[in-house]
């Protein structure tokens, strides 16, 4: 009877492709963001608002991920920003191979920033490195502050956390202190942006931070 020691990481396939993506983006000085949240938190509205200002400063492309339809890509296209839609037809997250297959559709020489709007899901996307520089996790005030502790991986691995729909705070039972406390325990240094993609409140701080973060990454 033989025993063969492997110590082989499983799911390393995705990781290898993510590193390839990372290299391609680095070679073209493109900064990539992976935006994750549950369905309906407001990712697309958040991007629609952000893009109107960001496109004045940097060349941007967007990759939209959804199980079906091109609805989100159509909304982004209305902002005048180049966008590609990936339909996963059942997969609950984007993976590095899907991103790799779309990267070639952009003229990366013209891009400074590439934003991925991941499939709406607070569980699976956190497990799949896409080759991004920045992971952004979004929660909205209508979802409940307990989602941070209930879905820790996506908030723990985030480089920035967005709390959207703060215009609804007076009308919903969202424990803001509990939310901030949970993040303090899980990911103490993470910058938190309390925003309303609808009214624009808080969006300026987020956009300014993102541009500064991108600049410091390229130095």
């Amino acid at each position, binding site marked *: *009877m*033989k*025993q*063969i*020691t*492997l*110590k*082989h*990481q*499983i*799911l390393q*396939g995705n990781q290898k492709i993510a590193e390839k993506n990372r290299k391609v983006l680095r070679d073209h000085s493109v900064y990539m963001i992976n935006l994750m949240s549950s369905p309906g938190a407001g990712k697309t509205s958040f991007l629609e608002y952000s893009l109107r200002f960001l496109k004045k400063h940097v060349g941007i492309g967007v990759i939209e991920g959804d199980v079906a339809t091109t609805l989100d890509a159509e909304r982004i296209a209305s902002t005048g920003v180049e966008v590609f839609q990936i339909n996963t037809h059942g997969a*609950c997250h984007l993976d590095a191979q899907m991103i790799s297959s779309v990267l070639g559709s952009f003229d990366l020489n013209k891009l400074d920033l590439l934003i991925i709007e991941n499939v709406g899901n607070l*569980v*699976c996307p956190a*497990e799949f490195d896409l080759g991004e520089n920045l992971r952004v996790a979004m929660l909205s005030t209508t979802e409940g502050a307990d989602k941070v502790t209930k879905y820790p*991986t996506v908030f723990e691995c985030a480089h920035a956390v967005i709390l959207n729909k703060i215009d609804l705070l007076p009308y919903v039972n969202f424990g803001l202190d509990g939310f901030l406390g949970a993040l303090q325990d899980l990911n103490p240094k993470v910058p938190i942006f309390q925003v309303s993609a609808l009214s624009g409140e808080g969006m300026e701080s987020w956009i300014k931070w993102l541009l500064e973060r991108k600049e410091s990454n390229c130095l």
Partner: protein
Amino acid sequence: MHEISIIYSILTMIEESAKENGIKKVSKIKLVIGTERLVMPEALYFAFEQLKREPIDQDAVLEMEERIGRDLYIDYFEGE
């Protein structure tokens, strides 16, 4: 989650290594599963039973060791 993809990856890796090492029948596969990897052992066992293949790993037994953290790897396998 994604236990089916995980088992599929495991069986592919094991079968390749078994061929390289002259093993015709795998009897045991030992995994290390990190608590933060969102993998359900019960779903993994189920997927394993469904995807096992004649003749190489049909009778193989899956053993899992849970560890705190983000590990997810094949520790070793046994056979002859």
